[in-house]
């Protein structure tokens, strides 16, 4: 979850796709999606549908942190030494 929080908090306002998050965090889909579901259920992540970039492709679900998610990300970073997420997680 910390890896996902870090990835999502790195670009706070940007909507991120699931496969991009997998590549960035190194998490497999079997780990990423349960985390996204839990975090969305808990109001830490919001999701919305984005129109496909190419015709004939399915719409894609995109995610970003909510205010509560951002607050949690900051709290975790501070608890782990007040630095950035990368130093906190190291």
């Amino acid at each position, binding site marked *: 979850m910390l890896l996902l929080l870090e990835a999502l908090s790195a670009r706070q306002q940007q909507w991120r796709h699931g496969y991009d998050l997998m590549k960035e965090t190194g998490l497999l*889909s*079997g780990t*990423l*999606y349960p985390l996204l*579901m839990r975090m969305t259920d808990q109001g830490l992540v919001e999701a919305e549908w984005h129109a496909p970039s190419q015709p004939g492709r399915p719409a894609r679900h995109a995610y970003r942190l909510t205010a509560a998610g951002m607050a949690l990300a900051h709290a975790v970073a501070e608890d782990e030494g007040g630095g950035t997420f990368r130093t906190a997680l190291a």
Partner: protein
Amino acid sequence: MRAAVARGVMALAIACLGRCRQQWGLAMQGEFEAAAEEGKPLIFAFGCLFAAVREMPTHEEGRFVLTNYVFALGLMMPMATLQIGCALLGFPYLYPGQDGLRGAMAAGGVQESLLRGVYQAAVPSLSVLLLLLGIGHLRIAWVMLEGDWSRVTAIGTRTMAAAATLVIFMAALFLDGSQAVLQTAVLALELAILSLLARWHAQLFPSPSSEELAR
């Protein structure tokens, strides 16, 4: 071939997620295309299936499906195997001494010599009845997993009638009916569980009202 397997696994994952997580199933489907483009559809699809199976116990629809499979594979299938096996192997339990009808027809006691002809005549009917019971179990399990509860009731009633006929038939032939009675009791228990599952299914997926159908 690999792509086809991956698509099959994805379809299974989406089905496992059920209606309450349908949006997440579609989200996975959308990302599956991106994974396929990068040549990793299979690992992505299996990951989604793993996630979907892990999600199943957390929602009622998933618990319902899991219960159905446990019931079908844990009770219905073993009962069907036992009954079909007994019919094909010559009723090892239906006659004292565990020798089945073969033992009943063996030369020996007075009873055997008197009843041999009757037992020989009864063998086809008993075999057919026991096969019907086994096949009935298989059909009930299959139709239950398809969610066709009206057919479950119809096949269950017919299977119960076959079980009752078998017990009556055996009693008339003075055969040891204790195992058949036990199997009929298990069948009655199964039908009771099936009626509870049907009620659970009706709560989860209420049928549309006549007004809704008219619209």
